[in-house]
């Protein structure tokens, strides 16, 4: 058979270390990919619209809120970015170990420890000047998250304890830790919730613009660029994926599989911890019960929708952030019950995946037709 080896028209794998198709192609396939997603979102809106109308509310108002809230004004956009930052970090914290075939479900625990560490420094050393305190706060947050993840990694390597089990359980432990810190150690007496005292002035990330966007967003931009490049080009990125694809073969070819897996978990923890530190230093100026929000689940979803491609993560994360910010204001604007938001998000996810299948089948059909054509 003829070895007509092309530089891969339309690589099947959408992963970082897979050979990337030429730019023009990527651009075209990008546009091509956009359509079904739009359709999927639309379909979800239609279904939910019917429900909302049936409940006697105005769907158009609701959807206007969901779609435009992020872009209507400065405020909406800043909010979106503030959501985007932790979402991106937590989905990286899921996607990186996933590359090595490990499931880190502990993102929220690691993030919580990050906030605790950051708050601890920010509160106890509140007198320090910003140049020292702020970096310290961020650093300690990162470390705290990394250590928390390292526990799971250690249990995984040394005792073969499944990481899903350990991370889930450690999440629950971290809730108690947070509860203790926020309602006992540095509890704010006036607060009606488990909330710590505010951190010192020097521990607050400076803001940009009006309304201020905290500079944590820039840190996250930097991090996601580095992550994407590392995954695409670096040895570490390659070894990570190799371990995920075939652990034995990797070890036989000189990859320290155990070390790679452990490192991926610890790095994930560090990123989640950074997310925590940024929430403290950028958004809340303190840590508090529920600071982890639903970032873990959304992070997992983002990571999986991006099919583990660290390059895609920030973009998917932005889409989800827009949805989240918009959905949040939906009720106040339209009066539709708040549960609708969950239903809408669930449907959008389902339909997005289904549209993926649809396009895939369509592409395959086209390919085989092309092949037949070539034969004739």
């Amino acid at each position, binding site marked *: 058979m003829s070895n007509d080896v092309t530089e891969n028209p339309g690589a099947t794998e959408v992963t970082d270390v897979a050979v990337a198709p030429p730019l023009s192609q990527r651009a075209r396939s990008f546009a091509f990919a956009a359509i079904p997603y739009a359709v999927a979102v639309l379909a979800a809106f239609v279904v939910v619209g019917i429900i909302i109308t049936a409940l006697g509310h105005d769907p158009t108002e609701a959807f206007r809120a969901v779609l435009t809230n992020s872009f209507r004004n400065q*405020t909406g956009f800043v909010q979106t970015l503030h959501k985007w930052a932790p979402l991106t970090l937590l989905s990286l914290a899921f996607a990186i170990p996933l590359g090595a075939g490990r499931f880190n479900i502990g993102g929220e625990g690691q993030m919580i420890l990050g906030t605790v560490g950051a708050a601890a420094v920010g509160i106890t050393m509140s007198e320090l000047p910003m140049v020292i305190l702020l970096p310290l706060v961020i650093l300690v947050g990162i470390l705290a998250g990394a250590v928390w993840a390292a526990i799971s990694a250690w249990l995984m390597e040394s005792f073969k304890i499944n990481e899903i089990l350990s991370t889930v359980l450690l999440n629950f432990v971290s809730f108690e830790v947070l509860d203790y810190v926020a309602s006992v150690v540095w509890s704010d007496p006036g607060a009606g919730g488990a909330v710590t005292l505010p951190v010192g002035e020097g521990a607050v990330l400076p803001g940009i613009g009006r309304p201020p966007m905290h500079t944590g967003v820039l840190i996250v931009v930097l991090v996601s660029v580095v992550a994407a490049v590392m995954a695409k080009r670096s040895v570490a990125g390659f070894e990570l994926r190799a371990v995920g694809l075939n652990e034995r073969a990797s070890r036989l070819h000189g990859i320290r599989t155990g070390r790679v897996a452990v490192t991926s978990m610890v790095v994930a923890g560090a990123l989640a911890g950074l997310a925590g530190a940024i929430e403290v230093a950028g958004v809340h100026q303190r840590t508090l019960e529920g600071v982890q929000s639903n970032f873990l689940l959304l992070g997992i979803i983002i990571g999986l929708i991006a099919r583990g491609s660290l390059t895609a993560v920030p973009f998917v994360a932005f889409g989800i952030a827009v949805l989240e910010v918009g959905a949040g204001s939906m009720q106040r604007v339209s009066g539709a019950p*708040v549960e609708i938001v969950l239903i809408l998000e669930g449907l959008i996810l389902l339909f997005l995946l289904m549209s993926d299948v649809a396009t895939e089948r369509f592409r395959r059909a086209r390919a085989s037709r092309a092949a037949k054509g070539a034969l004739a």
Partner: protein
Amino acid sequence: GCGGSDDPEASTGDGDGGGDKQVIAAIFSGPTNDADYNAIGLRALKAAESAGAEISFSEKVAVTDVEARLTEAVGDGATVVWTHGSQFYDATAKVAKNNPDVNFIAEYDGLPKDQPANVWTIDRQFHLGFYGMGVFATKLSKTGTIGYVGGLSLPFSMAEVHAMEQAIEDSGAKATIKPVWTGDFNDAAKAQQFTTQLLGQGADVIVGSLNVGSTGTFQAFEGRPAGDGWVTAKYTDKSAAAGEHYAGSLVYDFDKPLAEVLGKIGGGEEKGNYLLGFDTGVTIEMSDSVPADAKAAVDKAMEDVKSGAVKVELNTAKIG
């Protein structure tokens, strides 16, 4: 059961609600159909609506999202923003600073430091109410062991327990309080398990300081003969759900407080602290099955606190 929508474009976001129609946006922490803290919030809001204000609200708002909700509400032209629940105070104060020409009503347990000029606080003073509950429980208890079931071990929760202890002291009885915290105001299952254990440990009066979780405390009494132990609740009258061991509830009402604060704001008084107490909408509602002497004692306690004959100390010192 949801708020009527207001058309943001129509209402201009022009500042102090002085004179013209107030556009109120409220933030609730849980579902407004919880027949509990959020329900009374919505009731107050609806009352304001029938008094002529224009309303909208968001429910089930997490503390992490409240700032976003607030800024949006302001952006959509609300002239008065009310956050129902003191966990929202910090975010409210923060947004208030950034929007000086909008009025804010927040809740806070105590007097906040550097309260912005456009913020009213409602101080819930739970310790006052729980002094009454302390008297109530002491009267009801035969075994002299009183169980207190809280959610998160927050300062206000500590204050409640200390107030009850003060009540026991003042009454000279030798009852003891076993306080427990389920870790979640809305986890009824945990509440049921804790209550069962408290009852097992000899407590015969359970004072609940929960939200939706309170149903768990009632459930724990299932299968016990009437009169064998009492359970009390907080925020709303729960007689319908509680069953025959229900002794009563420390009921809070925000209709009057909200109306009065809105009135003051309308009158141009943009900053202040509204104190909740037995004189302003707080009462202990008792079921008919409660013995008369207990009723009397509680009524007296409420009077004393109101009149100031009894000074209830606000003590948030840690317990267990």
